[in-house]
């Protein structure tokens, strides 16, 4: 049974809302039940933008994740402080070690420190750091197929940004390689 509850959190501009939307779309393409709930308003001020994503094979009851996240994807330091406690014991904490030097205080979750900005820079585009992280996430959880994520990306990008798909595909692969 799948009942994945993911928090994606980081600075505005790091593409955390997009990461959440891609997983949500991909889940929908695979006929799973999904919801995407963004933070908005004053919550967004002061360093963190975040969204709650649920992918389940049963109808989503509450779209709110409240100390029951199965995975938290943390892209910046304020988000680590704010969200590391939200992950259930045995859950996954993915930390962008390119920007966060601090270690997690949790010893009851699986913690992965991933230098996603460095990998993105190696690919020649710092903006795909979120996709590197997403690739690692997909490899760890297998919640949806990477090809569904690419399909979702094609939908969001439209024809104007179609040429960026191969770069994003590569970023997903490099992310997956980080945790293989």
């Amino acid at each position: 049974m799948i009942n994945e509850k993911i928090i994606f959190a980081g600075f505005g501009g790091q593409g955390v809302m997009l990461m959440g939307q891609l997983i949500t779309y991909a889940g929908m393409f695979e006929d799973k039940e999904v919801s995407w709930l963004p933070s908005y308003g004053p919550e967004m001020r002061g360093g963190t933008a975040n969204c709650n994503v649920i992918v389940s094979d049963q109808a989503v009851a509450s779209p709110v994740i409240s100390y029951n996240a199965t995975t938290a994807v943390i892209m910046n330091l304020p988000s680590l402080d704010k969200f590391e406690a939200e992950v259930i014991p045995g859950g996954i904490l993915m930390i962008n070690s390119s920007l966060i030097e601090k270690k997690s205080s949790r010893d009851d979750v699986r913690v992965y420190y991933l230098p996603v900005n460095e990998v993105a820079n190696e690919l020649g585009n710092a903006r795909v750091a979120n996709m590197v992280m997403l690739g690692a996430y997909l490899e760890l959880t297998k919640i949806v197929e990477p090809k569904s994520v690419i399909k979702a990306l094609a939908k969001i990008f439209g024809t104007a940004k179609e040429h960026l798909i191969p770069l994003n595909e590569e970023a997903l692969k490099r992310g997956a390689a980080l945790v293989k």
Partner: protein
Amino acid sequence: MAKVLMKGNEAIGAAAIKAGCKHFFGYPITPQNEVPEYMSKELPKVGGVFVQAESEVAAINMVYGAAGSGVRVMTSSSSPGIALKQEGISYIAGAELPAVIVNIVRGGPGLGSIQPAQSDYNQSTRGGGDGDYKLLVYAPANVQEMVDLLQEAFDKADYYRNPVMVVGDGMIGQMMEPVEFKERPHVDLPAKDWAAVGTKGLRKPNVINSLFLQPEDLEEHNIRLTAKYQKMKDNEQRYEAYNMENAEIICVAYGTTARIVKNAIETLKEEGINVGLIRPITLWPFPEKAFEVLPETAKAFISVEMSMGQMIDDVKIVSNGRLPVDFYGRSGGMIPTPEGIIGKIREMIGGAK
């Protein structure tokens, strides 16, 4: 048709256009701004009209005027904006015109906050405007239900010649869920022979009006309106009953709060505690029918709301002394947690079980 992923507010716009809404008048306010944004972009493509009015008061009066000409028209706003529209809503009800009003509720009173709330229950169901009038009020719990009910709202508004309100909260407005625009059954609706569309000199003019200076006339008008509201009470009550068999405690919750209650119910079920849920889908008429037959195991009701307790009065009315009615709520933009609800229910049952 295939499912698409849509933000609640955008889905409201798409559903309205699907239902034949060609006219939208509004004034911006968070957290519903994606509704006017969507309408401003999409309505011109279908030959419709979008106007950003100079105020909420102006917007609702534009709705009044458009409705008087018989077209399908909608406005949307959020709590304090809906408060400003109340005068116009009363006029539209008094003049017996169809219109759809969306309220994406935020914390109050006053300007309050921009986070989700359900503290406009009384404003929606008791009438924030003057006089003996009622609105048909829908409260969807997910984006799909929002899309379905919003389209139906236009039919019901036309059928009853009455404004229909659709109430969501900031959460349902901002979240994305898959939706499907299903083929809808054809509804036979009466011709709009009352609309003020010009006589071409062939008939007496139709008059759109809510002023009756003769008390006898106004009383007669009110008696007729009340008969219409009674018909809505008889025919339009809607609800979902969930896990009611052997329920010890029955939660009453609507909209997104009902979804959080469901999580609490599932957790308590694992502990062997049976809790049911009655989810009003129509806030007015309140679904009295759901309360007619209760499980013999039921010991109490609890109204769970994102407010300080407004629907609790209706639960007490329908309980009619049969069972005690308790309350759990968060307000001001705080969202109830399953843990909070579970804690309250455990307390009601008597300690940890």
